[in-house]
Structures are given as structure tokens and as C-alpha cells.
């Protein structure tokens, strides 16, 4: 009897890398000291599905990146400062370009803040600390990020500000969109209390995946990017046309899709840069609607029309 093979055809749109402007590092793997209820890749102290990157692994990618014309370097996890080599990694990075660390700032003793300030002062490039804080009160934040996270984070921000940093406070929007201005005001008052009088605040749309899908809702099946939706769309708004994510095991299309096997584009940076990314995940829909939410604003100007 003849075997019938059903080939699964992936009809999702594919986009090429236009330029490798941003290089992301999953520098702490999926290891985090917190266990946030909205984490899109469910990072936790015991989530070892992706392990820390070594300084050598990062250095190798940095060296390839200069040939590939990378403009900015981003470090994420998990919590990057769980990686014992993080400061050395930042020192290496700041020799070649600007570095941004996405951190919860709860592992920020004064001596670390001081060392980071020294690294920043010693480079012609900027070191940005992007601090996740998900509420304007202890109750609001800790309901998502866990007990004690608020106090430690706010203290971390204070130390960074004392050292001259202007950390970018990022918050996932967990309120109706029309209340954003009220929350921004709340953040401004809270941050002023720790001496941060000209705060940089970035509100992010929720990604309905990982822990957040359990907390609120998952994507429904209509929330997908289709070929039709890309007609006349400015593709540079999608991070995967401008970035790749290096991890301890393989290179991915973007930092959001770490747990999607189809987003793994190769073993090496060069390989992954040459392969298109498929917009098959529902998270791509959020990126499509909100546009390059992962980038710093200094690099995310709208493109020419």
C-alpha cells in the first residue's frame, strides 16, 4: 500500500533581513531571579532551557558583528546580571558600539551601579539600562513581578540615577489604553521620589504568550500576520528585518520568539542573517501593530514614506 505523505506547507509571510542594525544577546538564557506572571518566555530561577552565554561566545559574535555592520547591541534574558560575566561582556561591547541592558534592576548593589557608571564614562558609546517596572505601586508591580520586586527595583533605579544614569523605565501596559497618561503621571511622581526628575519611560503593549497568556488571554486565531496585511506596510517596523538574537544555542529571528523552533534561523550569525524570518507566530501580530517595540527610541525613528 502506498504511503501518503501530507506535506505541511508553511504559508506564513517571510521577510528578509534588510540590515543587521541590532544584535541581541540572550545573555542570561531563560534564567531569572524573578518569576513574573507576564513573562512571554516564562523565565524563572529554575528555567534552564536556555543557559547563560559565556564572555567568549559574546566576544565571537561581537567580532563577526563589525563586519556585518551592526549598529546597536542589546542584552536580555532572563536577568542579564544573573550572568557573572555580564560586566566584562559590557566592557567588551562598549569598545565596539552602544549597549543596552534589559534588566529588572533588583540585582543592583551600589558597587555595581558605580562600576557600570565607570564603564559608561570610559566609552565613546552609551550604556543604556532599561529597567522593567510594571506598576506605580508596590501592590500593582508585585502582583505581576513577585513580592519584594518593587522595593528592590526602585532602589536599583535610585542607585543608577545617583551614578548619573537616566535609565529607561519600561512597563507592560496592563490597563486600558486611554488611561496611559494617568499612569505616566504616576510613574513620574514615583520616580521623582527617588531623585529621578526627568524620567525616560517606555510603555509596551502586552504580548499574549507565555505566562501572560495564562494571566489574561492568549492570541485568538485571527491574530496573525497575513500576506495581504503586508501590502504597503513598512517592513522596517518589524524587528526581524533589522535584528537577530544570538543565544547559547543558535541564532533566532527575534528575542520574543525564543521558544518557537521555527524562529531558530541557524547555528551562526552569518547563517541566520542570510535566512528570512517567517511571520507565523501571533506575537508577530503585536509587532506588526505596535512596530519595533523592542528598540530604544533613539534608533526607532519611523522610516521614510
Amino acid at each position, binding site marked *: 500500500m502506498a504511503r501518503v505523505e501530507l506535506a505541511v506547507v508553511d504559508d506564513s509571510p517571510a521577510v528578509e533581513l534588510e*540590515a543587521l542594525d541590532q544584535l541581541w544577546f540572550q545573555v542570561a538564557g531563560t534564567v531569572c531571579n524573578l518569576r513574573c506572571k507576564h513573562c512571554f518566555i516564562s523565565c524563572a530561577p529554575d528555567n534552564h532551557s536556555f543557559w547563560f552565554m559565556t564572555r567568549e561566545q559574546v566576544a565571537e559574535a561581537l567580532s563577526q558583528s*563589525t563586519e556585518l*555592520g551592526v*549598529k*546597536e547591541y542589546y542584552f536580555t534574558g532572563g536577568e542579564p546580571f544573573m550572568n557573572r560575566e555580564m560586566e566584562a561582556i559590557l566592557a567588551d561591547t562598549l569598545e*565596539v558600539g552602544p549597549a543596552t541592558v534589559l534588566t529588572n534592576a533588583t540585582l543592583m548593589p551600589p558597587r555595581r551601579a558605580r562600576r557600570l557608571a565607570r564603564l559608561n564614562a570610559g566609552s565613546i558609546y552609551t550604556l543604556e539600562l532599561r529597567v522593567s517596572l510594571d506598576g506605580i505601586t508596590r501592590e500593582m508591580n508585585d502582583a505581576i513581578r513577585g513580592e519584594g520586586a518593587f522595593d528592590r527595583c526602585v532602589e536599583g533605579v535610585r542607585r543608577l540615577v545617583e551614578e548619573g544614569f537616566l535609565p529607561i523605565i519600561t512597563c507592560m501596559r496592563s490597563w486600558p489604553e486611554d488611561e496611559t497618561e494617568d499612569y505616566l503621571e504616576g510613574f513620574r511622581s514615583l520616580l521623582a521620589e527617588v531623585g529621578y526628575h526627568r524620567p525616560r519611560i517606555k510603555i509596551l503593549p502586552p504580548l499574549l504568550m507565555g505566562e501572560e497568556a495564562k494571566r489574561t488571554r492568549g492570541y485568538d486565531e485571527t491574530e496573525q500576520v497575513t500576506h495581504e496585511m503586508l501590502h504597503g506596510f513598512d517592513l522596517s517596523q518589524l524587528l526581524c528585518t533589522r535584528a537577530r538574537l544570538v543565544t547559547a544555542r543558535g541564532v533566532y529571528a527575534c528575542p520574543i520568539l525564543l521558544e518557537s523552533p521555527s524562529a531558530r534561523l541557524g547555528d551562526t550569525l552569518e547563517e541566520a542573517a542570510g535566512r528570512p524570518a517567517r511571520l507565523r507566530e501571533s506575537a508577530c501580530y503585536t509587532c506588526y501593530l505596535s512596530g519595533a517595540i523592542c528598540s530604544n527610541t*533613539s534608533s526607532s*525613528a519611523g522610516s521614510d514614506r
Partner: protein
Amino acid sequence: MSGEPLTRVAALGGIYSNHQALRVAIDDARERGAQVIICLGDLGAFGPSPDKSAAILREEGIPVVRGNYDDSIARGLEDCQCGYTDPRDNHYARISYEYTLANTSSEHREWMSDFPHHIRFRMGAGPEALAVLAFHGSPRRMNEFLWETTTPTHFLQGLAAGHGADVLLGTHTGIHWSRPLGRGRWYVNAGALGRPANDGRREVWYTLLEFQDGHLEPHFVPVSYDVEALADEMLDEGLPDEFIETIRSGWWTTCLEVLPGKERARGRW
């Protein structure tokens, strides 16, 4: 741009309707022996009476590279393509854009619609001559920000090589800076004539490129102009007090979100 080899070229960054500074800068550049003056775009925004700056540039026959503001005004787009996301920044950007669009004559808009994205010229002569590429934001994108602290040297070297240029000359960020790229090559950001460089000084800046003994040197030239006359005109035109505060204090008060941490930390706000 033919004839004698160019050894002295003045580049004017974003004018932002500061016709007072524009007049002074042109006269100053001529006095310093600039053979050619070019403008890197963004004639409007921020300041008063946009037609005045346009008229000066046209009278003087100064070639202009297309800035995102000129592109938007010429085409009547709904915003300035600055790409702000902060609500406060967008609020001021909208005031500025709507004012400029409403006060730019159709004749000037038509003139702007012919601005090229790039202007190429050579400085010096013989084997040492350098190919200069002038643009607004970056050679690849009119509104790309190239800040000093977020732009790696290898990235600039790649842009120069990819566009066949020895000298990359742009503006868009509003803060002047330059960096040698090796083998006599340069990136030069001419800064802006329209508003101060967020350094607490009232002067604004233009750039003089000087080619001497086979080498290029960029010089940033401070321009003192009649700040109070401009402030009075901005007041009469109903422009926001925050803009007037900027030209009086030398510190940016709006559109701050796009600044990288280091540049932001050097300012007051």
C-alpha cells in the same frame, strides 16, 4: 560645482526657520572663504515664518538636500516623519508641523519638492581628492538618527564604503559631532543652525570643511545671532514658550525622547 578644486565648503544643518541665524551664518561662511555653501535640509520646524528662510536660501542659490521636514511639507504629509513616540514630544512636534505647513507658500513647497536626497562633490584635487556625500539623516535613510554615542565606527565605515564616499556629511540629530574613519575618511554631523546644541549656550552651529595639505578637517563654527529678535517673532507667531526658552537658554525643552542616554544626560531636561 566645477572649476577650482574645492578646499573650503560650508555645510548648514537643520535651519528650523531660524532665518536670523541663517543670515549670519551665510555671511560668516563667505567671510571665511567658503567657496560653496550647502544646506543639509529641514528648513522648517520650531521657528517662525518659514518662508523667510526659504527665500534667503533661494536668493543665495544654496543647494539643499531633502530633509524629512522638507519632504513632509512638500508632499503635505500628516506629520514631520521624526518618528517620536512620546506623547509630549508628539504634541510639540504637531504644533510645529501644522504651523510650518500652514505658513509655507505653495511656491516654496514646489521648490522643495525638487530637493535631492543626496548631493555628491569632491574636495581637493588629484589622487588625494575626497568624495563627499551629503545627505540629511544617513545615506540610506533620510530620517535615521546618527548620534555620536549610538553610532559605531565600523557602522560608519560600512556606510561610507557602501556608498562610495570618503566623507559622510549629515545632520538630523541637531547636535554636531565628527569622527575620523581612518585613511583620511570622516563622518561629519553638521548639527543645526535652527536651535542651540543642548549645551547651555545660545549660539548655534554650522560646519566648515577645510581641505589642506591633502587632509580634510571639519571645523564647527558657533554663530551668534539676534536671539531676542527671533524670540519676539516666535511670540508674535504664537509658537510655544518652550521653544522660546530653548533658544534663550541653550537647553532643549522638547523632543528629548530620541536622545540617547549620554546626550540626554549632558542636557538640563
